[in-house]
């Protein structure tokens, strides 16, 4: 699916739907990636630990000298490696399609997008595997992670506005508190778009629904937005840290939960 979407994006750009250049095609690749990578991560991650727990093969593994923590680490390494290979294949394919369509390869945008997409895949991979370690069945893991992805896509803005309302008793106006853009960027989709733009020099837009509840101040730069909470020179590490936190925090939570439960 990733590969097909790569062809689709390059073909669409080449036929003059929007600006016609290889770099513009890379910009647009960010959009299907934001849809397909989370889906791939859910498919890879949600069945890992809870699938083995539901089937009973976890009881075979635990009958051998393997700890529950080691099993989660093994699933994490394997799952993230599979996702990284998938993303690398899609980027490699994009290089070929770009050569075929435009005769050039926009190296920096593609590499920037590729590295960021791997981090994005890890964020959803870690989330899925962590939830899978905490849940008793794959069904429940899928429900939780899909719900989380839907929240990031559709509900993040209302949630941020709600937090602002609860904290300050007013709806955010144009002069929003400095921590509002910060909260927005805790969303991995938002962080992904920002990091891909910074690293690749292309412009990748976040694929999520907003309702205009928060005013988008187009004049302010990303650094202006985030520097209310994080110093300007820390913007990139902060955004990369958001993606890494989505990878690791759910996994640590899942490990702690799995260690506590009875495996029946």
């Amino acid at each position, binding site marked *: 699916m990733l590969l097909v979407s790569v062809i689709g994006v390059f073909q669409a750009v080449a036929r003059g739907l929007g600006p016609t250049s290889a770099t513009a095609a890379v910009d647009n690749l960010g959009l299907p990636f934001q849809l397909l990578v989370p889906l791939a991560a859910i498919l890879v991650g949600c069945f890992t630990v809870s699938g083995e727990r539901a*089937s*009973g*093969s976890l*009881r*075979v593994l*635990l*009958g*051998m*000298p*393997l*700890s529950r923590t080691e099993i989660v680490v093994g699933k994490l390494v394997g799952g993230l490696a599979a996702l990284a290979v998938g993303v690398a294949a899609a980027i490699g394919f994009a290089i070929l399609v770009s050569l075929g369509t435009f005769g050039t390869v926009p190296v920096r945008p593609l590499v920037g997008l590729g590295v960021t997409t791997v981090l994005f895949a890890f964020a959803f991979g870690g989330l899925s595997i962590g939830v899978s370690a905490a849940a008793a069945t794959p069904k429940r893991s899928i429900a939780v992670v899909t719900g989380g992805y839907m929240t990031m896509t559709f509900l993040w803005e209302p949630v941020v506005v709600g937090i602002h309302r609860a904290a300050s008793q007013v709806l955010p106006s144009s002069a929003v508190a400095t921590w509002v853009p910060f909260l927005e960027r805790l969303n991995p989709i938002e962080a992904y778009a920002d990091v891909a733009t910074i690293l690749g020099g292309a412009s990748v837009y976040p694929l999520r629904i907003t309702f205009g509840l928060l005013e988008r101040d187009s004049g302010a730069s990303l650094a202006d937005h985030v520097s209310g909470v994080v110093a300007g020179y820390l913007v990139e590490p902060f955004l990369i840290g958001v993606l890494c936190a989505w990878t690791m925090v759910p996994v640590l939570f899942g490990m702690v939960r799995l260690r506590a439960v*009875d*495996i*029946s």
Partner: protein
Amino acid sequence: MLSLVQSGMTAIRLDSLTKRYGEYVAIDEIDLSVMEGEAFGFLGPNGAGKSTTLDILLDYARPSSGTATVLGYNAQDNPREIHDRIGVLPEGYDLYDRLTGYEHLRLPASLKGVDIDADRVLDRLGLSQADADRPVGTYSTGMRQRLALGMATVGDPDLLVLDEPTSGLDPHGISLLKRLVIEEVTRGTTVFFSSHILEHVAETCDRVGIIDDGRLKTVAAVEDHTSSLGELFDRHTSGSPSEPPGMRSGSGGA
């Protein structure tokens, strides 16, 4: 029949072991010692608490109170030290359909850091090399059970914990299992073997413990009077052996 080998060392020791699921008491204050080198049969109807007890020994489940000691280690504090030295056939397990029999046997071998003579393991279990080359998804229930038994014996463990090992086996498989247990005990392995079928236990074990309703009713030596053991079993158990297992979900009891 096997002679009782008592070296004085305890392989398994349960002290007031209790497991509650909410209101339901799955096992209640079980005290038991199994000696090293002994073949011990853990006998009781379905839902009596056998698997709950074994799950705690294997650290799949944690006791509500009391302790389980395996090979001198606390089952909950030192599971790795224990699992390095034991072989396990758990209840309610599953194998990997896409991996072959050989790949399954290599898994415990690599985790325990031992080399295996896979063909010898296969031979003991009546599996051919052609079987072992096939993915386990093509196996019958009995073949899966025999392969899982083979995995348990990898690395010459000091203790074999077998939960209902005869389930899914045909008469030929059961006789292979009995021979395997006898060979292992002769080699000095301790075997802890649960079953709801008296005959399967009586022919291979030195002693049996009879459990029902979560309580250990009696422990008796098996000599050649299986019939009196049958009376013992009938006297100490209320449930019928064909009852469906219901206790693991915590919803009902025997």
